[in-house]
């Protein structure tokens, strides 16, 4: 008997993911956006681990992916924050609504 059913865990991870998404869309600060993305990645990891434990498949499969994702999250954080530093140096701001370099 498991502590909680799979679907409840999935709902949790979905809500966590959407929370992260909300943060990514509303935060002005680039560092804040990166933090929100970390939350989204964690929600995905929770999904993987839940599936690995409760579905009929080798459990290593899901967990290996989690490891990969954590590594990628680390690289994202490292590169993303480096980019934030660079932008800050060039534009003197890290507020995304003050940076419209994508505009023609």
């Amino acid at each position, binding site marked *: 008997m498991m502590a909680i059913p799979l679907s409840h865990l999935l709902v949790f991870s979905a*809500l966590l993911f959407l929370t992260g998404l909300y*943060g990514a869309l509303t935060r002005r600060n680039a560092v*804040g956006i990166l933090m929100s993305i970390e939350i989204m990645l964690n929600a995905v990891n929770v999904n993987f681990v839940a599936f690995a434990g409760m579905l009929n498949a080798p459990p290593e499969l899901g967990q290996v992916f989690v490891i990969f994702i954590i590594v990628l999250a*680390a690289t994202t954080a490292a590169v993303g924050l480096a980019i934030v530093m660079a932008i800050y140096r060039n534009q003197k701001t890290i507020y995304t609504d003050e940076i419209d370099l994508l505009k023609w």
Partner: protein
Amino acid sequence: MTTFGPLAAISCYAALLGILTVAILTVTVRNLFHAAIFLAFTLLGVSIIYFFLRAEFLAGIQILLYVGAIMTLVIFAIMLTSRIGDPQVPQSNRQRIPVFILIAISAFFLIGAILKASWKTISTLQTTNAVELGKALMGEFVFPFEVISLVLLIALIGAIVVARSDP
């Protein structure tokens, strides 16, 4: 093979709710430094979920990497870029309400879809350990493992190059 009592279930649900709460605080709180602290709690909570799911190795990595390394990076970035801690500066942009509506709709659909689906779960919780994982990484997944380590290396070099002050 571990069974959970009602206490365990209650504590688990409580953990889930707690995580969601801190996560929401993370994305909404004005002070970015506080947001980083809340993020750390969120990540810690996720590692607790891993414990509940008997993935102790992952829980360890989660704490080490996220709470240890990534959080340090984030806080460094916050400290290095000025104005971040200034409470007078608005921390969210003007599309809050439309985004919230969209998120709500997405949540509605997603939860509906999850609850509607019939999950073919197995009765017992499958577990694995570091040895099994290590074998999988070095055996079946050796190629992605090598690629990801290369990516990590490149990311490190790239981060250094991008963040260097003098071009």
